[in-house]
C-alpha cells in the first residue's frame, strides 16, 4: 500500500521533471543533497551512540568470559542461559505485570482528567491542569524518594491519616504491597504529562462536531466517549507507546525504593536492575549485554506489535 503510493509519487515526479533540461536536473539533484548535509551531525551521533552500542552489545552477547579460558565465542549460549534464567524471566514477568496494571491506570487517570478539563474554562480548571502536570518536572528519583518517606511508618503521615478512621495503615513497603506502591509512584509521576498530551489533542478537534452531536441530542458523556475519544485515538496510541516503553525499562523507582525496602525489592526486581547488578557487582559484562539486548528487542517488538495492531483503528477513526 505504502510502496505503491510512493512509486506513484516518484513516477509522477519524474514525469513532470522529464521535459526539463538535464542541467537543471543535475543542479536540482545537487541541491537536494544538502539534505544529507543537514542530517550529517545527527547521523554521526546516531551511528556512534545508538547503532554502535547496539551492534557492540550483540557482539558481546555472543561471547563469554571465563576465568579459565578467557573470552571466547559461544554463539547464542548466553541467550539460551537468559531465557532459562529464573531471575531474568521473573523480572520480565514483573515488568509485564506492571504494564498490565500501570498503563491502563495511568491512561485512565490522564484521559478522564483531560476530558473533564476540556469541558471547563474556569480559573480553577487551569490551575488544576498545571498542578496535575507539575510532577513531570520532578525527577523520577526524587519522586520515588518522596513517596518512600510518605510510605514509611517512621516518617510518613499514613498512621495519622488511617488513625482518623480508627484503622492501621497497610505496610506499603512490604513484599506483597510494594508492587502497588510502585504503581502509585509512577502514576503520580507521569499521568499529568500524558494528560497534557491528550488535552492538547482534544483542543485540536473542530468544535463544530460537538454542536452537530448536541443538536442530535447527544449528552456530554456520549460526546466524550463516542466522539472525543475516537477522534484522539492517535494521541492515545502514542501515550500508550510512551508508557509501554517506559514501564518495560523500569529501573529508577524500584532501585530508589529498595534503599528503604530492601526486603521487599530484590536486586533483580526488573531486567534493567538485573543487568546493572550483573555488570557492576559481578563484572559479567557479556551476560549483562545479553540481558540488555534481549530487553531492547522485546521492547521494540512489543511497541511495534502494538502500533501494528492499532494502526487500522487509529487510521479509520481519524
Amino acid at each position, binding site marked *: 500500500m505504502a510502496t505503491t503510493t510512493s512509486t506513484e509519487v516518484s513516477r509522477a515526479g519524474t514525469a513532470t521533471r522529464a521535459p526539463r533540461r538535464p542541467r537543471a536536473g543535475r543542479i536540482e539533484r545537487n541541491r537536494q543533497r544538502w*539534505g544529507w548535509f543537514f542530517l550529517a551531525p545527527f547521523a554521526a551521533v546516531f551511528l556512534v551512540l545508538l547503532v554502535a552500542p547496539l551492534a557492540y552489545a550483540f557482539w558481546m552477547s555472543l561471547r563469554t568470559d571465563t576465568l579459565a579460558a578467557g573470552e571466547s565465542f559461544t554463539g547464542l549460549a548466553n541467550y539460551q542461559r537468559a531465557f532459562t534464567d529464573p531471575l531474568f524471566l521473573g523480572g520480565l514477568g514483573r515488568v509485564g505485570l506492571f504494564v498490565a496494571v500501570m498503563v491502563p491506570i495511568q491512561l485512565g487517570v490522564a484521559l478522564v482528567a483531560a476530558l473533564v478539563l476540556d*469541558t471547563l474554562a474556569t480559573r480553577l480548571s487551569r490551575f488544576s491542569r498545571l498542578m496535575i502536570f507539575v510532577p513531570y518536572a520532578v525527577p*523520577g528519583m526524587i519522586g520515588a*524518594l*518522596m513517596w518512600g518517606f510518605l510510605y514509611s511508618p517512621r516518617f510518613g503521615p499514613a498512621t495519622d491519616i488511617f488513625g482518623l478512621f480508627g484503622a492501621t495503615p497497610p505496610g506499603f513497603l512490604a513484599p506483597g504491597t510494594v508492587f502497588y506502591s510502585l504503581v502509585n509512584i509512577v502514576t503520580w509521576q507521569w499521568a499529568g504529562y500524558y494528560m497534557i498530551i491528550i488535552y492538547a489533542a482534544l483542543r485540536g478537534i473542530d468544535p463544530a462536531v460537538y454542536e452537530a452531536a448536541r443538536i442530535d441530542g447527544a449528552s456530554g458523556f456520549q460526546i466524550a466517549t463516542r466522539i472525543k475519544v475516537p477522534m484522539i485515538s492517535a494521541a492515545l496510541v502514542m501515550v500508550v507507546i510512551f508508557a509501554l516503553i517506559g514501564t518495560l525499562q523500569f529501573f529508577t523507582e524500584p532501585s530508589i525504593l529498595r534503599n528503604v525496602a530492601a526486603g521487599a525489592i530484590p536486586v533483580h526486581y526488573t531486567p534493567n536492575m538485573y543487568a546493572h547488578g550483573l555488570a557492576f557487582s559481578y563484572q559479567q559484562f557479556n551476560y549483562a549485554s545479553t540481558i540488555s539486548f534481549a530487553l531492547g528487542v522485546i521492547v521494540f517488538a512489543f511497541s511495534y506489535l502494538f502500533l501494528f495492531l492499532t494502526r487500522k483503528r487509529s487510521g479509520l477513526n481519524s
Partner: protein
Amino acid sequence: MSLQTTGGAAGAPPTDRTARRRPRRDRGTDHAARGPHSSRVGSHLFLLALVLYFVTPLWWLVVGATKSNSGLFASSSSPLWFADDFSFVENVQQLWTYQGGIYFTWLGNSFLYALAAGVGATVLALLAGYGFAKYRFRGRNAAFALLLGSVMVPLTALVIPTFVLLAEMELVNTRWAVILPSLLSPLGVYLVRVYAQDVVPDEMLDAGRVDGAGELRLFFQVALPLLRPALVTVLLLTVVATWNNYFLALTMVRSPDLLPVTVGLAQWQALSSGGAGGETLWNLVVTGAFLSVLPLIGAFLALQRYWQGGLALGAIK
C-alpha cells in the same frame, strides 16, 4: 511508517492552533454557561481531588525541608504540617558546608549536563528535522524509517553497552560520558520534521533561492525563525530528560564531584537508611531534594505559554 500515517491523519498543522483556539474558547464558556450547574460542581470537585493527590507529596517536601533531622520523624511532629522549630535556614547552611558543600557541586553538574545535552540535542534535531522535511535526497525514506524505528529502542538498553564502548575510549567517569549519550533524541528529530513540513513553505525557500541566498542562509534566516516553537519544545523535552536522568549518570560516573544531584541524593539516602554506622542525613536529603526540584518547576511555571503549545506538538504527531 505507521507513526507517519497517524501523523498525517491527526496532524493538524500547528499554525492552525491559535486560529482554532478562539472558537473553542467561545464554545467553552458558552457551554459552561448553558451546562447543568450540578455537573460543573462535580467536575470541579473531581479536579480538586486530583490536585490534592498530585500536590500532597510536594507539600510534604516543602514542609519537610523546614524540619530538623529529628523533627522529620512522624512521632515528633505531623509529617504534613510545620514543626515548632523552623530549621530551613540551618538545613541549607548544613548543605552548604557538609563534605565541602558537595551538594552544590552536584546541582551545578545537573545544570551543566542538562544544558549541554539539551542545547546539543536541540541543534542536532533542528538540523536533521529540517533536512528531512525540506530536501528529497537519495536514501531519505530509508533513513527516516530507521529514525522512526529508533524511537522505539529503549534508551536504557543502550546504557551498559555504551558504558563498555566509552570505557574503551577512556571517556567513562568524565562529564562527556553523561553528555554524549544524552545528545541522542530521535523523537526530537521527528517533531521538528513534522513541524517544519507544516510551517516552512517551499515557495518561501524558492523565492530566497531566486534572490541568490545559499542553503545555509535559508536555514538560518528563513526557516529558523519559523521553527522557534519546535525549538522550545525539543529543548524543554531534552533538558527535562537529562535533568531527570538517573540510570545513565549512575552507570557512567563514579567520582563524587561529577555526580548529578539525582545520583548524589540517592547515595545519601542509601547511606542514611543503611543504619549501622551510616550517618543519618535525612534533613539534608529532604532539603536537597526540595532545592533540586525548584529550578524545573519554576521554569515550567514561568514558561507556561511555550510548553503548553509546545507539548501539543507531541500530541498531534
